[in-house]
């Protein structure tokens, strides 16, 4: 699952493999986090991958439409604005502040949109 996320971000399986290895190598340093936070291991791994991908997010000039996730059944059901916010944060590594400025919507509004995105994901099996 984590490999799928990284591939979607970097669009290169070899590079994704390297990021995946980097994440798992770092797990031993994050064992405290795993026990302390008591949250889903996958979400923690994904957060770790996200941190590793920070430089990639900053340096990548990928256009918004390049993601294949738009064909995903969950993403497809979202409105264009929801897609922009959800994909922007999850796969383009944008912050809530950046999206707020970009869309000229208050940060609370961005969070509300995110909430609606999860409602869509939950609705579809």
């Amino acid at each position, binding site marked *: *699952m*984590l*490999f*799928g*996320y990284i*591939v*979607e971000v970097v669009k290169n*399986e070899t590079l994704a*493999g390297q990021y*995946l*290895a980097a994440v*798992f*190598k770092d797990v*031993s340093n994050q064992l405290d986090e795993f026990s302390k*936070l008591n*949250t*889903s291991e*996958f*979400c923690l791994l*994904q*957060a770790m991958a*996200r*941190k590793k991908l920070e430089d990639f997010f900053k340096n990548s000039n990928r256009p918004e439409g390049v993601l294949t*996730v738009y064909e*995903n*059944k*969950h993403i497809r059901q979202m409105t264009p604005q929801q897609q922009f916010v959800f994909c922007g*944060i*999850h796969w383009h590594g944008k*912050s*809530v502040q950046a999206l707020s400025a970009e869309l000229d919507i208050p940060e*609370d509004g*961005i*969070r*509300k*949109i*995110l*909430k609606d*995105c*999860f409602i869509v*994901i*939950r609705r579809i099996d």
Partner: protein
Amino acid sequence: MKIQEYIDSGILETFVLGVASEEEVKQLLYMKTKYPEVNEALQQLEQDMEKLAADMAITPPPGTWYKIEKDIEAIIPHQENTPQLFKNGSSHKSRTRKGNDEYIEVEGESSHMRLHKAWRWVFAAVFILGKIFLGFAIYFYLENKHTQEQIQELKTEIRQLKNK
């Protein structure tokens, strides 16, 4: 702030996506431990994320896990960490195969035994009772010896009286 308002604010979603600020994370961890509703909502969101990820999962190319394993092994100093017991292989067979089932054979090396602390009172009581019984045994032994001596003396006296 009311709990439902907090849950509806979207902060949980930003946390799950890894974009919550440090302050938000701190607050969320506090709320999560204090209010089960927050914890429940968070778990639901994590499940949603896993559902989405599972839907888009890609199998890594063959050899990826081997490479990761090798990389991890390279950063673990095995020689120092491997217990002596397993390094030598000595009398222990760590793995045994019987039929199709592989299982790990466990054999205790230590000659020590672990007991519950409550047993120390039992041992103390047994020790004290032992001492008491020993004291009684010595006392009755000496008492018996003394009585026997007295009987012997009385017998001698009776014999002397009969002879007179």
